[in-house]
C-alpha cells in the first residue's frame, strides 16, 4: 500500500512536470529553452514526452497490477461480508455505541421488526428469542469493488490506446522513429506502421484536391508513417463566419475510397466521421499554396512598379544592382479579425487579406514581413500597413502609408516622386524665398536657399533621424529644440507646396502630408524589401485532419461508468447494523452502528426510535 501511494505520488508529480514543460515540441525549442547542459539531462528522463515515457508507463502498469491484486484478494471477502449478518451482542457491549436507546413500548419484537423492514432493513432472528438483528445498505461495500475495478478497466483501455506496443517494438529494434525530413514514399519500412496497427492518433495535412492513404504520427523528435485502411481526398476546406468576421466553423469536404466504395463526407470541429474503426477529425488548417498576384513598389521611387506572380511556399528571386534577394512566401490569410476603432467605438472586424513573407539576402539573412491588402481604418483615416521584424520572437513594427481619398496608394507614390524631384524642390524653395520678407540681401537669400536645400536633401536621404543627427552634430545643445522645430516646419512646408497639385485635385487632404512624411521617414527602417501590393489572389487551403483509432475507448467509458456507480455506493449508501433486544417484558434496548457515523446518521436513528414510540401512543 505504502509503495502504491509512493508510485501514485510519482505519477502525480510527473504529470505536473508534464504540464509545466510543454510536451512534444520540436527538440530544437527545448535546446534553446534549457541550454546545452540541461537539454540532454531532461531528454534522458523523457521529460519532453513524459506521458509516453517508458518509466511512466511502467509505473502505471504497476499501479494497475497492484490494484488488480488488491481487488482479487478483497472481493471474495467483501462478497461474503455482504451476505453475512453481524453476530449478536450482549446488552452491556451494546451500551458502548454512540446511538444507543432504551425505551418502553407495548409493541412486541415482531412489530418492531416490521418497522425496520419498512425502512429497508433485512431482519435476522437469532437463537435468542429476545434478540433481533437487522442490517441495511450492504451495497456500500460494492462501492469498493466498483471503484477499484473502474481504475483497472480505465487503465487497461488507456494502455490499449497508448503506444506501449510501439515502445516494445522500438526497444526490440523492429521499429524506429524517423527524424529526417522525407516524403512519405521515401520513409524506410522500419518507420512505417501498417494499417492493422491496433491503435493510433495520426495527423494528415491535405491541400485542396490532394489525396493520401498515409498519415503521420509524431513521436519524440521525429515521426512515423501510418498506413490507413482507406484513401482520403480533400475536395474543399472552408470557414464559416459570424457577422463580425470571427470564425464560426471549420469544415472539410472529404472523399474517402474504402474497399472500392466512395464516401462523401463533411467533417467539422465537434463533428467527426468514423469509417472502419478510424475516426476522422477536423483539427487544423493552413494555407495550401494560394496563388498571389502582386505588385512591387519601391518606397524611394528607385524603380518602376513591377508585377510578380507567386504562390505560398514558393520562392521568387529579386535582384537589385548590388544584391540578390529572395522572396519566400510563407502564408496568406484571407481573413484578419481585429478590434478596429471606428467612431470612437471598438468593433470586431475582418480587415481583409494579408500576406506573410521572408525577404532573404544572398548571405542568408532574412527579415519577415506581413502586409495587408486593404487600407486599415484608424481614427477616421486609412493606412496601408506592413509590418517587419528581424526575428520570430519580436513584434512586427508597422510602416503606415496613408491612403488617399480614393483609398488608393497611388497618391503616396506620386508624393514620393514629387519629393524626389530636384526641379520641384528648387522651384518651391525659390518661391519660399520670394515670399519671405525678412530675406533682404542676395547673400542671405543664397545661404537660406542652400541651407534649406541641404536640410531637405538630408531628409530625403535619411529621414527625420538624419535631421536629428545633423542637429546633434552642428547645433549647440540649448538651441537644438528650436532649430529642430524650424527644420521640421520647413520640411513640412516644402512637402506641402511641392504636392499642391495632389491637394488641388482633391486626391488628398492636408493631413495626408504629415502622415506621408512620417511614412517616408519610417521607410528607412523598413529594410530592403520593396512594398508588396496584393492585387489578386486565389485562396487554396490545406486542411489538417486527425485520424484516431482507439479500441480502448469503450473500455474507458465502461470503467468511467463503474467509477461513478462505485463512488455513489461508497458515499451515498449507508451501511447500518442494528441490534434490538427485549431486556424485560416491553423494555427494549436498541443499538445502531454504522461504519460512517455523522450527524445525518444520528438523526436517522432518532427518527426510527421516534417511529417505534409514536405508533405506540395512537
Amino acid at each position, binding site marked *: 500500500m505504502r509503495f502504491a501511494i509512493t508510485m501514485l505520488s510519482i505519477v502525480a508529480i510527473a*504529470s505536473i512536470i508534464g504540464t509545466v514543460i510543454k510536451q512534444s515540441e520540436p527538440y530544437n525549442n527545448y535546446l534553446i529553452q534549457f541550454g546545452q547542459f540541461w537539454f540532454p539531462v531532461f531528454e534522458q528522463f523523457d521529460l519532453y514526452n513524459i506521458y509516453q515515457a517508458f518509466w511512466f508507463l511502467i509505473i502505471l502498469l504497476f499501479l494497475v497490477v497492484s490494484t488488480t491484486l488488491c481487488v482479487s484478494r478483497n472481493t471474495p471477502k467483501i462478497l461474503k461480508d455482504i451476505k453475512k449478518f453481524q453476530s449478536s451482542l450482549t446488552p452491556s457491549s451494546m451500551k458502548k455505541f454512540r446511538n444507543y436507546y432504551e425505551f418502553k413500548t407495548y409493541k412486541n419484537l415482531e412489530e418492531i421488526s416490521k418497522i425496520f423492514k419498512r425502512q429497508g432493513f433485512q431482519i435476522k432472528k437469532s437463537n435468542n428469542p429476545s434478540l433481533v438483528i437487522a442490517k441495511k445498505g450492504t451495497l456500500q461495500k460494492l462501492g469498493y469493488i466498483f471503484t477499484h475495478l473502474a481504475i483497472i478497466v480505465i487503465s487497461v483501455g488507456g494502455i490499449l490506446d497508448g503506444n506501449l506496443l510501439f515502445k516494445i517494438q522500438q526497444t526490440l529494434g523492429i521499429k524506429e522513429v524517423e527524424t529526417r525530413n522525407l516524403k512519405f514514399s521515401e520513409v524506410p519500412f522500419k518507420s512505417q506502421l501498417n494499417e492493422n496497427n491496433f491503435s493510433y492518433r495520426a495527423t494528415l495535412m491535405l491541400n485542396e484536391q490532394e489525396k493520401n492513404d498515409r498519415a503521420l504520427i509524431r513521436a519524440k523528435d521525429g515521426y512515423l508513417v501510418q498506413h490507413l485502411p482507406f484513401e482520403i481526398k480533400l475536395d474543399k476546406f472552408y470557414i464559416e463566419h459570424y457577422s463580425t468576421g470571427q470564425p464560426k466553423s471549420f469544415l472539410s469536404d472529404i472523399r474517402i475510397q474504402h474497399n472500392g466504395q466512395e464516401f462523401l463526407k463533411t467533417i467539422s470541429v465537434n463533428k467527426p466521421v468514423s469509417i472502419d474503426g478510424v475516426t476522422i477529425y477536423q483539427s487544423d488548417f493552413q494555407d495550401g499554396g494560394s496563388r498571389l498576384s502582386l505588385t512591387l513598389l519601391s518606397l524611394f521611387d528607385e524603380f518602376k512598379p513591377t508585377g510578380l506572380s507567386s504562390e505560398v511556399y514558393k520562392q521568387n528571386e529579386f535582384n537589385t544592382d548590388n544584391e540578390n534577394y529572395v522572396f519566400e512566401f510563407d502564408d496568406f490569410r484571407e481573413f484578419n479579425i481585429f478590434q478596429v476603432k471606428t467612431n470612437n467605438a471598438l468593433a470586431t472586424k475582418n480587415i481583409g487579406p494579408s500576406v506573410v513573407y521572408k525577404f532573404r539576402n544572398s548571405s542568408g539573412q532574412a527579415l519577415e514581413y506581413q502586409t495587408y491588402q486593404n487600407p486599415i481604418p484608424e481614427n477616421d483615416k486609412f493606412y496601408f500597413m506592413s509590418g517587419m521584424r528581424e526575428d520570430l520572437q519580436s513584434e512586427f513594427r508597422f510602416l503606415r502609408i496613408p491612403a488617399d481619398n480614393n483609398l488608393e496608394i497611388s497618391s503616396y507614390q506620386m508624393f514620393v516622386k514629387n519629393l524626389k524631384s530636384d526641379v520641384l524642390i528648387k522651384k518651391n524653395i525659390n518661391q519660399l524665398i520670394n515670399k519671405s520678407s525678412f530675406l533682404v540681401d542676395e547673400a542671405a537669400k543664397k545661404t537660406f536657399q542652400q541651407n534649406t536645400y541641404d536640410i531637405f536633401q538630408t531628409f530625403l536621404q535619411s529621414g527625420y533621424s538624419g535631421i536629428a543627427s545633423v542637429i546633434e552634430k552642428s547645433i549647440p545643445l540649448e538651441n537644438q529644440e528650436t532649430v529642430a522645430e524650424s527644420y521640421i516646419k520647413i520640411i513640412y512646408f516644402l512637402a506641402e507646396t511641392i504636392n499642391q497639385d495632389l491637394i488641388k485635385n482633391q486626391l488628398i487632404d492636408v493631413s495626408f502630408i504629415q502622415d506621408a512624411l512620417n511614412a517616408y521617414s519610417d521607410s528607412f527602417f523598413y529594410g530592403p524589401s520593396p512594398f508588396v501590393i496584393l492585387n489578386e489572389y486565389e485562396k487554396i487551403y490545406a486542411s489538417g485532419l486527425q485520424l484516431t483509432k*482507439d479500441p480502448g475507448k469503450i473500455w474507458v467509458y465502461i470503467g468511467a461508468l463503474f467509477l*461513478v456507480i462505485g463512488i455513489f455506493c*461508497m458515499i451515498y449508501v449507508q451501511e447500518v447494523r442494528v441490534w434490538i433486544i427485549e431486556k424485560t417484558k416491553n423494555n427494549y434496548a436498541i443499538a445502531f452502528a454504522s461504519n*460512517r457515523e455523522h450527524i445525518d446518521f444520528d438523526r436517522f436513528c432518532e427518527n426510527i426510535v421516534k417511529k417505534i414510540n409514536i405508533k405506540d401512543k395512537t
Partner: protein
Amino acid sequence: MTLSILYIASILIAAGYSLINFTEFMDQYEIGILILSIPSFIWLGFFWPSFKKLFLTVLILLLSAIYLFQGDLVNQQSNFLLKYFLSSQSLIMWMTFFFPLSLLTYIYHSIKDSMFFGKLGTNFSWIAITAGFSGLMVRWYESYLINLDVGHIPISNLYEVFVLFCLITGSMYLYYEHKSETKKLGSFVLIIINAAVAFILWYTFAKSADAIQPLVPALQSYWMKIHVPSNFIGYGAFSISAMIALAYLLRNSFGLKKILPSSYVMEDLMYKSIAVGFIFFTIATILGAIWAAEAWGGYWSWDPKETWALIVWLNYAAWLHLRLVKGLRGDILAWWSLIGLLITTFAFIGVNLFLSGLHSYGEL
C-alpha cells in the same frame, strides 16, 4: 402546495414552449438535455424547497426582461428598468453588490451573535444569487438578440464561469446553512465568493471582459451544457469545504469557539461538500473526456487542464479514502482540504494563466 403546483407548472410550460418553438436551435442531444432537465428541476425543487422560490423569481425577472427588450438590444440603453435593473449587466452588478453586503452582515452576526443580522446576511445572499442567476438567464437571451447564430449558454468564457462559480457556491452554501441550522459559517464561505466577485469586477472594468462573444468552433457542442456546470459544482463544493476547514482550524487554535459551530458539525459539512463535489467533479471529468474524444480526437491528451483535473481528483480521492477507509478525522483533513483549494484554484485559473494548452478559452 400552491407553490409546488406553480413550480411544476412553470417548468412544464417553459420546457414545453421551448420544445415547440426553439427546436430549430437545438440538436437532438440538446433536446434530450432539455427533456431530462424537467425531472431534474422538479426533483431539485423537492430536495431543496427554497429552490422553487428562486426558480420562480428568476423566471419572472427573465420574462420581464424579455418583455422590456422587445427583441432589440438597443432598449437596454433607453429603458430605465433594463438599464439599471434587468439587463444582464446590471443584474450581475447587483449580484456583485449584494455578496459583499452579505459577507459584512454575516461577520457582524458572528461577532455580535445577532440573529437579525444573521437573517439579513442570508437574505442578501439570496438576493445576490437571484440577481446572478437572472443575470445569466437574461445574458443567454441577449446573446440571441446580438444575432441568432451568436446565441449560446453563458458559460463559455472566464467571465461567465466566474459568475457561475459565485452562484453555485452561494446556492450550495445556502442549502447547507438551511440544513445545518447555523449561519455562522457565512462569514467564511462568503470570503471565497467575494474573492470571485472582486475578480469579476476587475475583469469587467479593467479588461471589458463582460462583452458577449460568439462561440469558437471547439465550444459549439451540447457537451458544454453539462460539462461546465458539473465542473463548477465540483469547484464550488471544494471551495466551501476549504472555507469550513479554515473555520475549523481557527476554532480549534484561536479559541473562536463562541462564534463558530461545533467541530462535529463543521467536520460533517466539510465531508458532505467534498463528497458531493467529488461526485460531480468525477462526472465532469468523464464528460470532459467524452467531449474531448469528439472534439479533439482523443479522450485523454494530457492537456494541462486535463492533467490538473486528474491531480485535483487524486487529491480528493485521497481525502475521502483517508476519511472513509482509514477513519481519519480532525486537523489533518482540515489542512488537507485547505491545501486542496490551492490545487483546485490552480486547476481552475492557474492553468489558464500560466500554462498553454487546448483549454485556452479563458485566457486573461
